[in-house]
């Protein structure tokens, strides 16, 4: 089947078999190898990318499901002049990565999290990243990185008060 989609701002058109997973389309067909495959049960989040701006596990999305959509990967967060995004910078400054395998997925999940909830508490960050596994860092510096990014982002542009999709605001 032919698919047409935007990946990191570039329009792509490719012939793919229906069962091609989006993660493989990105890695093998487009050579965008930052996102990694870490599991086979939609658990670990190493494959996380943005689909129409929302974090998804690209191992559980078919490339054909992304037809007509836009995909952003970690590579796409980097500006043309090589400047990394605020979230990526924060991960660097706070030692939020060691082996780096979970990192692109963690960055994409964090980017999506902050877009939906610009002022998360530490607990909300941890819950927001429960779909992203890390073995190296113990999560401590990852949480620091996301909170630092939140502070930087909200300092730069005051929050428009976007509705949070956070369940903790729903109380019995």
């Amino acid at each position, binding site marked *: 089947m032919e698919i047409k989609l935007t990946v990191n701002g570039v329009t792509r058109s490719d012939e793919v*078999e229906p*069962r*091609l997973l989006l993660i*493989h389309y990105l*890695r*093998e067909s487009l*050579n965008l*190898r*930052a*996102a*990694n*495959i*870490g*599991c*086979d*049960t*939609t*658990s*670990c989040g*190493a494959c996380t990318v943005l689909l129409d701006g929302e974090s998804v596990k690209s191992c559980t999305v078919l490339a054909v499901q992304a037809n007509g959509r836009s995909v952003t990967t*970690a*590579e796409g*967060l*980097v500006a043309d002049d*090589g400047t*990394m995004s605020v979230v*990526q910078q924060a*991960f*660097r*400054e706070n*030692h939020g*990565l*060691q*082996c*780096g*395998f*979970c*990192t*692109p997925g963690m*960055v994409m999940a964090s980017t999506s999290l902050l877009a939906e909830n610009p002022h998360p508490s*530490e607990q909300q*960050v*941890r*819950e927001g*990243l*429960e779909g*992203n*596994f*890390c*073995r*190296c*860092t*113990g*999560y*401590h*510096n*990852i*949480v*620091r990185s996301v909170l630092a990014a939140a502070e930087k982002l909200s300092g730069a542009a005051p929050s428009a008060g976007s509705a949070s999709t956070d369940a903790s605001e729903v109380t019995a």
Partner: protein
Amino acid sequence: MSILGTRVLRTEDPGFLSRGAIYTEDVQDERLVGACYLHFVRSTVAHAKISGIDTSAAREAEGVIAVYTGSDLAAAGLAPAKPPMPNMNQAMLAPLLAIDVVRFVGEPVAVVVTEEMYQGEDAIELVDVDYDPLPAVVDMNDALSGAKGLLFPEAGTNVVCTFGDAAASNPDLFAGCEVVVSEIIQNRRVAAAPMESRSAAASWGEDGRLTAWIPNQGAQGTKGAIMGLLGLEPEKVRIITPDVGGAFGAKFGADAEHAITCWIAGDLARPTRWSETRMENLLVMPHGRAQQHKITIGGMKDGTVLAYRIEILQDSGAYPKFGAFLPSLTILMTPGPYRIPRAESWSTSVVTNTTPVGAYRGAGRPEAAAAIDRAMDLFADAAGVDPAEVRRKNLLPKFTEPHTTAFGAKYDSGDYVTALEKALDAADYPGLLAEQTRRRAAGDTLQLGIGLSSYVEITGPGGEAGGPNENGTVEVHPDGTATVLTGTSPHGQGHQTVWAMLVSEELGIPIEKITVKWGDTDLIPKGGGTGGSRSLQLGGAAVQQASRELLDVARERAAATLEAAPADLEYDVETSTFSVKGDPDVSVPLTSLAESERLFVRSVFTAPGPTFPFGTHVAVVEVDTDTGKVFFRRIITVDDAGTIMNPLLAEGQRHGGIAQGAAQAFLEEVVYDEDGNPLTATFADYPFLSATEVPSFELVDMETPTSYNPLGAKGIGEAGSIGATPAVQNAVIDAVSHLGVTHIDMPTSSQRVWRAIRAASSSAANGTKEA
């Protein structure tokens, strides 16, 4: 202004963050163009004879190039692997692919080679293997007794090897003790589960040489393993280590699948690629721990410990690997940081129809620490003395000259009591006790538990003749850059940054201009890799030493250039320039001394022995006494690994170790049913720690330098995982000890905690006290 000891950001990170690191699966190389893909057919039963393998349908499937079975490999002359150490039962051979018998679920039985990646999973479904099930020996106690049969009839036993001597046990070890407590405890099997699973890529050149890309913990060790498994001469093999997505002890050497990937590339004269799925990884990558301990501890009612015995049973899994050897390290660290007048330990390693066991962060030492610290708490409880006081009373006092234990471990430097006091102080131990008392009095559902662990561990051991050592090469180029070659093999630890810091400190070259290389056996034929927390104290020391020796060489050249005596020159690190003392205008920059002749030095640093970092962890948990659920709330740690080169990275190592250690205590375990079927073979079933289960960690700094290397550094990579496990386990038990609970095996799942509470209350109702 020294760069050492400062929080330098990693030079690895911009690449890792913007395009991703380049792991084996990512490697693109002209030698791998046109690679075919390997997928393995694996045993679905724990123990069975193979009565037939039908590969005909698979051979016909779309895109299938070849199918190989164990018989094919044997016919091609590939011999089974022997156990890695001479004292292991040498009849327990491990074929690369199973031939007549399978011994664990997941054991590779056949391999299918396809043109395209996706075709492989289709094709392996078409391979038909007939199994005649044999009784599965799953519990290590059954393996020891032989009650359920032997895995290797030709071996005549399920025992792989023993360490220590049970026959030499002193029957009067506990004579004179007012209090004696004994318990059988489990140090349960866990999965290493690095985020990057295993993979390999291989290509044979027209020159008849194999080049293989394999994620590992030391290219040189992997080369040796591939040579051994395939019977290849050294000049024929080149191993390249791409970026590695975590290892934790489970990526040493080479596994059957790596070797088969290499061999098939030669047999088909075509490059090959292989990547396992996470399920394969959880089934087949060597597991960690899997020890059973019978611990006995005795002493006086005032809290003084007089005697301790630990009898170790090690589950090696189906084929003896490094796991069978681990108890020797456990025995070495038997008394931990404590002064115990009489102590003994011995071990037996057995095979079972489960995944083979290997090294996992700490490798034998966490087991020792978990045992002695559980024993300390059992003793404290029985003697009615506060656990902190028991530790205070029994810790070895501070020493600056090496102290050799009765088990032959030569601790280089230690100040265990200070570590304990610092941790207790930072945790506000009295405040925690007061809160616990308040909740107990109020009968709160959510009870508080405080757990301690004081540990010491061995890092940087060397099996090499002449003592633990590592090599480092530093070269300065005329353009002002420098290259470092190291025999270490980082997989997240940041050697690229820290080795550059060490060189920069000596030579003044900025770290951005220093390239660090490792993991290519053509470039660096010798090296000990990264494991046992050896890298900084040996590899970093080697790089520092090479830098200093390079300056000596440069000084001679500068002296010749400036027509001065070498002793009359001084080197200014700020400007990287030699000048005549008192005459700064007469100078020559370091880089120009590399112009007419290469300026490099290869140096080997040898340490007098391994070093012994130490610390104390205080863990705080809450336990919901209605459901048994454990909430891991806080952990306060002192991890003293001597002088710290880069605190940012050292903290990261502590964090990661703490998380893994804690996870083993309250969450993670590998589970088999009684037939040897794995129940935790996916990330959905294996309770892998996520961000919501752990708090942020509270680290307290303490540095007691070692004299064993000029850096003053000991190893820090495994310390966190050694201290956290007993601290968290002790905390959980402490939370419900007022209900009569004295022990809960790890991991302290909610069901285990609930059962322990019920058992304690029912025996209290019956008027008996559970041991």
